[in-house]
């Protein structure tokens, strides 16, 4: 089987409508609490400034919380059969409370894999965040696998 046999192949290139999201300090705090990261720079403005940040920064993987409109709309996916295989973030700079970002999601690639547990359809989702100056702040790539 080749990439063209992937159930997701017809959807490659599909892009979601942009969404504008504000990075909020309460959201950063809840995220840091959930992951058990007690660094005070994520909750205390004075600690953030003392560490050289202009405002409260977000932990690196907070980027995942800035969700694009889902470019997978209308694709039949059984969420119990979906596995998150890989994840990558590339950062130009950290995210800061007060940032206003435009987020676009895209189905970047599709593939199919024959594994011990059967045939898996693979999809790479790419999320790009751009700030008001048009600068790309981060790119996130998620590889998800769905068991047939």
């Amino acid at each position, binding site marked *: 089987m080749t990439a063209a046999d992937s159930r997701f192949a017809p959807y490659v290139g599909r892009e979601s409508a942009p969404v504008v999201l504000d990075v909020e300090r309460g*959201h950063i705090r*809840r*995220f840091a*609490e*959930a*992951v*058990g*990261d*007690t*660094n*005070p*720079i994520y909750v205390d403005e004075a600690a953030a400034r003392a*560490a*050289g*940040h202009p405002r409260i*920064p*977000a*932990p*690196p*993987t907070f980027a*995942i*919380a800035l*969700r694009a409109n889902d470019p997978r709309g209308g694709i039949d996916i059984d*969420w*119990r*059969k*979906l*596995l*998150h*295989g*890989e*994840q*990558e*973030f*590339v*950062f130009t*700079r*950290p995210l800061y409370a007060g940032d206003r970002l435009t987020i676009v999601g895209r189905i970047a690639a599709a593939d199919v894999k024959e594994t011990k547990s059967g045939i898996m359809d693979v999809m790479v989702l790419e999320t790009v965040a751009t700030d008001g100056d048009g600068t790309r702040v981060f790119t996130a790539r998620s590889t998800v696998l769905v068991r047939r």
Partner: protein
Amino acid sequence: MSQRQPIRSIAEVRVGDLLPSLEKAPITTTQLVQYAGASGDFNRIHYDEPFAKEGGFPSVIAHGMLSMAFFGQLVADWAGGPAHVARLATRFKAVTLPGDRITVGGEVVARDEAAGTVELKLVAKKPDGTVTLEGSATVRL
């Protein structure tokens, strides 16, 4: 807050250096609900026990991204904060369940003094040695 002293400059870094490992508190189902809310990942497999069992899992399973956040914490603490993290990547290897105690560690695998970057190899493990995540990071120093 981590009491570890972060790395200040690339001159202090050698290939083969180990990052001080970070042992996280056992994963709780409350934490999975917190993480679902904070991250916006509402896949029921992370908080709805019957749904998870229908999917063939012994219980709800932790978000892989929760463990990836532990990598983020490890690397940011070591490097002197999130501004030094240029890239973070992972491959999810095994499922993490409530009650699991995850320890993350890392090693310097390359350094480029001219570029001011360091490459790290990362691993997340359960106490029995099961590798749950393998990762890598690029740090700007």
